[in-house]
């Protein structure tokens, strides 16, 4: 490799990091974006460092201390079995984020690729993919979940598979319609006239222009997936007790709400904060990625 090529590669990488830094800077410039960024970072840090921030063993039962109100000993009080809610919420956050980020991330990647191919590729490919998407979507989600659980047994992985499979058609369809809209635009025509091939066009030219709405949708799906996870865990198809997840904390708290409101509050607030955080962040990212909306342009 010649020196010039190495130099160009270094320039490209540093350019990418610089780009990331500038994106963060731009997001933080907007009040909502800054708030979203803060919340998301807060949730991420709590979740990643759950083991360090926890004050107690999340599954440690201490029935005599059941339904305690928040105190210095137990920041968010205790649940019906005397377990420390604060620690359970932190570990639950870890699970929630793991499930949602991985499954949405994978669904996004696959849905994006398939959507681009369906939108820009030959008609028959589009027809096959749409048939596939529609079949998956018309299958009742609950029955599908039951089928998967029966096949693979209940676990986090099961939940992730279910989420991925159900979300791919949604993302795929959205990307496909955006791609179709751009297919005949002047710049795509110019690229074809220059000789750009199929993959170059969809990944270099189409992708950055269709990814915006997709990111928003995906970021708002994160809390949605957390809810799915909670529901499935409640049905015994996901996380098994005593493993804490926000959903199970909420559900337990709901059963015992007359004894103590703290479990419900403690289970609900993280979900609210996460939803708001990701939504604000997603919207701010979309604005940042649209060069026309950049204020300094």
């Amino acid at each position, binding site marked *: 490799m010649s020196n010039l090529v190495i130099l160009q590669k270094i320039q490209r990488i540093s350019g990418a990091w610089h780009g990331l830094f500038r994106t963060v800077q731009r997001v933080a410039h907007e009040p909502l974006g800054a708030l979203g960024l803060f919340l998301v970072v807060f949730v991420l840090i709590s979740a990643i460092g759950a083991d360090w921030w926890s004050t107690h063993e999340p599954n440690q039962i201490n029935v005599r201390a059941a339904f305690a109100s928040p105190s210095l000993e137990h920041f968010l009080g205790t649940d019906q079995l005397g377990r420390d809610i604060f620690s359970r919420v932190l570990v639950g956050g870890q699970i929630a984020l793991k499930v949602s980020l991985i499954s949405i991330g994978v669904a996004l990647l696959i849905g994006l690729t398939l959507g681009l191919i369906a939108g820009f590729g030959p008609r028959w490919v589009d027809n096959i993919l749409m048939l596939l998407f529609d079949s998956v979507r018309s299958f009742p989600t609950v029955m599908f979940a039951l089928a998967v659980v029966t096949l693979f047994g209940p676990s986090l992985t099961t939940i992730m598979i279910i989420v991925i499979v159900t979300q791919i058609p949604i993302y795929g369809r959205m990307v496909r319609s955006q791609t179709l809209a751009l297919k005949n*635009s*002047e*710049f795509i*025509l*110019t690229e074809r*006239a220059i*000789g*750009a*091939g199929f993959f170059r066009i969809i990944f270099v030219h189409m992708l950055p*222009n269709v990814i915006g709405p997709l990111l928003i949708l995906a970021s708002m799906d994160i809390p949605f997936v957390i809810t799915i996870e909670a529901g499935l865990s409640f049905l015994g198809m996901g996380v098994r007790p005593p493993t804490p997840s926000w959903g199970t904390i909420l559900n337990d708290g709901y059963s015992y709400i007359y004894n103590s409101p703290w479990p419900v509050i403690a289970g609900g607030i993280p979900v609210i904060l996460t939803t708001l955080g990701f939504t604000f962040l997603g919207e701010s990212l979309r604005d940042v990625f649209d060069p026309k909306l950049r204020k300094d342009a």
Partner: protein
Amino acid sequence: MDSLSCVSPTANILNPLLELTDVRVRFRTLSTTRAILNGVSDPFVDAVNGVSLEIKEGETYGLIGESGSGKTTIARSIIGLLKPQEGSIQYDGHELIGRSTLEMKKIRRTIGAMFQDPVGSLSPRMSIYSLLAEPFKIHNQKDCDFESEVRRLLEMVGLSYDFANRYPHQLSGGQARRIGVARALALNPRLIIADEPTAGLDVSVQGEILNLLNKLQHQIGLSILIITHNLNIVRHITDRMGIMYFGRIIEQGPTKAIFDSPVHPYTLALLSANPEPDPDAKIDRIELEGEVPSLLNRPQGCEFHPRCPFVGNNCDTKFPFSTNVTKDHSYCCHYPRNLDC
């Protein structure tokens, strides 16, 4: 150089660089099933209905026509974005129709194209640097130094290197148009196809693009196909021109000859429809009534006859095939005008 002929001395004057013969491009209006159900026997429209033209090396050819005449369709067929159903397109002696994608890619290196919307033709999220370097990347010119090529191209079109870091939406129409020219010229093509190169540009900057194309043509012996409905610029910068109506070329020949004595009634109407920037100008205007009919309702015989002010007897039954005035100048009309010279 004020001479109107830009053929460079080393050009091959004998064989044309681009030759279209009887090109026909059809578009489907209904799917086969629907057509059968509705009893439509021929669910197609002929956007281009038998067009023949030639462009020699170093020549500028103007293809004139109003919306729906088929001129943009021809441009796209030449670049290979559309496939004609009949006819042949010969480029430098090679037949273009029926080529594989890979072969077309190679040929596309030598044909540059510029489309109508100057800012819209540039991929919105790519920097100007990436846009200018792209033709080299696509055609696997890995060894070349992208940065120096980008500099060369920007200099060629008269823009400073600062532009390399900008994005398309930050450019004015004229600047975006120049980037379009730069991209089209990146790989040293021999033919440029410019679709409405001055659309959207102010009158005071139109000349910049046209002068630039002209200068480059002199420098590197380029052939240019300009597609436009702006007769004012055609008069100045083209050597030959062809006028399209309803998918056919109804008159073609040297620009000066056509402007001096147009033969086809439509040409006459078009030339007289030009408002002069002089309030006292006396214009012998031939006003056409009505509009171009829809492609779905092709008139019988000569397609222009419903609007022609000089329509005669067999205009609605027989299509007038091409007749020559001189070797270069031909027309399609039963009752041509101005032929007494």
